[in-house]
């Protein structure tokens, strides 16, 4: 009953418009960004809109026109140099490029010289997404070039395979698993796309919930409510646990709101996956998901107990905000390390650092479990459990000393 009252009070104190509005604003921002990016990605999958002005009457200009009609949306066709201006005028709002093939284009190529074509790129913005259609048009031009080369080579009696003499058959061996027909790049991309979500979620939850615990302590001191709380007939460990649970509820709620926007943003980048990792035995079982859940829960408990200890140093709400910095760094560091390297491939010193940071373990768990590395996951769970209990005990100890009120732990005796 008393514990519930403490948790309820914590939630009420922490869940205010001032704390929740920035999160909602951030969520909406991510949502809007996701929407914009999603639209741009959809646009990128569509055929680019182009115009073609062809003055040449040779074979190769026909190939260009044919390929353009096949792979792009040709919304303007012209047949004289004067049509360029009209074409650009039509394309300026809805097209990406106009290709002008001058007279004698094919003839020049037959004479062994370069056939010149003119490309008018129509840029409507300088953003990354704005340049997506140009990549597609570049690909079309590369294909056209290759087709013309093939024709020229074959007409001279040489087999066209000379242009591409290698036929690669790839097999990637990763941690003892053989994957035929797959390059390391694809595997790396796929595993990363599946296993980076947990680190990002974990990082956000730790920063949000941890910040709440530290802020809660700062607010108790700033509002001069701590002394009253400490003289109530309730065990100090109950106060510590009540604060941790209350802050965790608010932190998780905020993280969920944040993640709704963030997942919408991330989804806008996701593309069709080129292979199924489960076919190679690289999938997660029900037990694996339980281990990941346990790892996340324990890391959150460890984070909150660490924040509780840090919170005892907070003098007020403002100083509490500063104290969230080391926790944020401890959450960001493993996230970036794991993004760039696997635990197994790190130098020993970095391995020790990564293992010692309790938040690393749920971040590494998914990738480790995909490769059935249970020793690292279970070892991590054991370590984080010890860490969490040690810091809860330390927080309770501090709550039982003068430290909270005087800044001193040592007794004068």
């Amino acid at each position, binding site marked *: *009953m*008393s514990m519930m*009252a403490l948790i*309820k*009070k914590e939630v*009420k*104190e922490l869940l*205010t418009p001032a704390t929740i509005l920035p999160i909602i604003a951030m969520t909406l921002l991510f949502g809007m960004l996701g929407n914009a990016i999603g639209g741009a990605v959809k646009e990128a999958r569509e055929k680019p809109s182009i115009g073609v002005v062809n003055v040449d009457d040779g074979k190769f200009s026909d190939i260009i026109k044919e390929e353009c009609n096949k792979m792009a949306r040709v919304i303007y066709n012209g047949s004289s140099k004067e049509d360029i201006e009209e074409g650009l005028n039509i394309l300026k709002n809805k097209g990406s490029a106009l290709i002008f093939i001058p007279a004698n284009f094919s003839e020049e190529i037959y004479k062994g010289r370069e056939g010149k074509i003119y490309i008018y790129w129509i840029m409507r913005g300088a953003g990354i997404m704005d340049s997506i259609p140009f990549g597609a048009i570049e690909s079309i031009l590369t294909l056209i070039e290759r087709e013309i080369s093939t024709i020229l080579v074959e007409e001279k009696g040489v087999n066209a395979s000379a242009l591409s003499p290698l036929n690669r058959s790839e097999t990637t061996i990763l941690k003892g698993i053989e994957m035929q027909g797959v390059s390391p790049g694809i595997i790396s991309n796929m595993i990363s796309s599946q296993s980076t979500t947990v680190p990002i979620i974990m990082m956000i939850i730790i920063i949000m919930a941890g910040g709440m615990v530290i802020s809660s302590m700062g607010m108790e001191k700033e*509002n*001069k*409510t701590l*002394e*009253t709380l*400490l*003289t*109530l*007939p*309730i*065990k100090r460990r109950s106060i510590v646990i009540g604060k941790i649970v209350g802050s965790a509820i608010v932190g998780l709620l905020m993280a969920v709101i944040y993640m709704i926007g963030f997942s919408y943003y991330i989804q806008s980048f996701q593309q069709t996956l080129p292979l199924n990792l489960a076919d190679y035995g690289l999938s997660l079982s029900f037990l694996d998901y339980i281990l990941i859940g346990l790892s996340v829960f324990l890391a959150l408990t460890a984070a909150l107990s660490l924040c509780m200890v840090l919170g005892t140093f907070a003098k007020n709400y403002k100083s509490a905000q500063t104290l969230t910095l080391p926790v944020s760094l401890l959450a960001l560091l493993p996230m970036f390390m794991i993004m760039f390297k696997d635990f197994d491939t790190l130098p020993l010193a970095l391995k020790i650092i990564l293992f010692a940071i309790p938040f690393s373990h749920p971040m590494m768990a998914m990738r480790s479990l995909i490769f059935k590395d249970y020793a690292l996951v279970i070892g991590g769970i054991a370590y984080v459990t010890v860490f969490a209990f040690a810091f809860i005990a330390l927080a309770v100890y501090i709550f039982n*000393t*003068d430290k909270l*009120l*005087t800044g*001193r732990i040592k*007794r*004068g*005796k």
Partner: protein
Amino acid sequence: MNAVEVNELVKKYGEFEAVKGVSFNVNEGEIFGLIGPNGAGKTTILRIIATLLQITEGSVRVFDYDVEKEADEVRKLISYLPEDAGAYRNLTGREYLSFIATFFGGKKEMVERGIEIANLGKRIDDKIDTYSKGMIRRLLVARALMNKPKLSILDEPTSGLDVINAQEVRKIIQRTVKEGTTVLLSSHNMLEVEFLCHRIALINEGRIVEEGSPEELKEKHDAKNVEEVFLKVMK
């Protein structure tokens, strides 16, 4: 039984000795006042009795419970009102009193008694964030007395209150004592001390320099009031 027994109490903050071998008893059912200049050690003594600070030397017992070894038992018997206390700003006055009442059995009558003592009218259902300093103090006094504690430790109970509200709080304290609560308070207000306290202890630089009832002390020092006693003793 004594409500409070303080024996040779010493409290050090590092090298600084804030309380230097203080001894006094508070009888059950009385109002006992600690008086002294700023930095005399009054708040430190009250905080030790309220189980907030640890003892360097000596002992303190509340209704025969040791404040360090049996702190949980002591906390069931006391309520402590710090001098510059605040309340949870996002709760309403009623919610705050209900929250505190939860730890003492959560009885509805307790909250109603608190609301009556606070005397905030309809504002009791407003957020504490909107209260004036005086309103918060009244709410905190109500919080400290609503559960009829066996010992109420009040550090400057009328601090920040205007004359009318201060008078009202003094009457509430007297009424609470009649209902069985023992009060240990500190105050700078000599009139208040003379009006309220059955016995007082004058503290200076961590030591008790005089102790007795206001009448005894006035007679002993040939003074018209406690303020004069205070000035004579402090000389």
